[in-house]
């Protein structure tokens, strides 16, 4: 607690207090499940305490990055969540969608058309 000191004599004799160093950030790596279906891949990531506005999902080249800012359970320590993945060849990057609900991020990564499974007719010889 600091109080403004209006008396000039006192303020000059006062020592200048150094600012408190910035609070260290806790860094966490979310746990993930990765699934594959015929038409897409899905990534589910636990991000408790993260609000949608504080979550960023981005791709750069073949890398998918999840970064989020949150607050630790103590209500004050800033928390940074980070994880990155190598995207498989054939990911339709422009079709990636993200949903954050109940502290779980669900990413859906559609496969490019040529990767989707299809059955191939077998002809008798």
């Amino acid at each position, binding site marked *: 607690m600091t109080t403004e000191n209006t008396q000039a004599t006192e303020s000059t004799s006062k020592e200048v207090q150094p600012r408190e160093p910035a609070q260290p950030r806790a*860094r966490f790596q979310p*746990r993930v499940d990765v*699934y594959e279906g015929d038409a897409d891949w899905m990534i589910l990531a636990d991000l408790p305490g993260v609000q949608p506005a504080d979550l960023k999902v981005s791709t750069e080249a073949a890398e998918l990055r999840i970064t989020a800012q949150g607050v630790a*359970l103590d209500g004050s320590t800033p928390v940074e969540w980070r994880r990155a993945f190598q*995207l498989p060849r054939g990911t339709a990057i422009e079709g990636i969608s993200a949903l954050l609900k109940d502290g779980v991020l669900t990413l859906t990564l559609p496969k490019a058309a040529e990767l989707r499974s299809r059955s191939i007719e077998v002809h008798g010889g």
Partner: protein
Amino acid sequence: MYGLITDLERAFRTNNRRWSTEPSLGGWPRLSHKDTDTSLVFALELPGFSEKDVQVTLEHGQLTVSGKRQTSAPVGHRALRLERGDFSFSQSFALGVPVDADNTAAVFKNGVLTVTVPKAEARPRQVPITVASA
């Protein structure tokens, strides 16, 4: 053909070596408790849980929070990597002070459960006495 399989196996390997991160595994669910002037506040990280997956009970001066989460593959999908897992837990806290059980509140937000237990208000010990002048 072999090339394709190798590529799929390599898919989703994680690129984290250049990011120094603290492991988030162990001691799950992370929890904290705070003792303020007016209440005891307990917070637990429970991602993927909803209200119906969690029980909160308060009896005999003890708060118990328990719950269960089950994860399953989305329909038509197979797992490539599983870290989140099914989870059940039960955690009890001895409160140690008289509390106002009726006004205990539990709130779920963004996968964090916060239970606020108000402390019972201390009864006023001072009894006003009218002093009559002699």
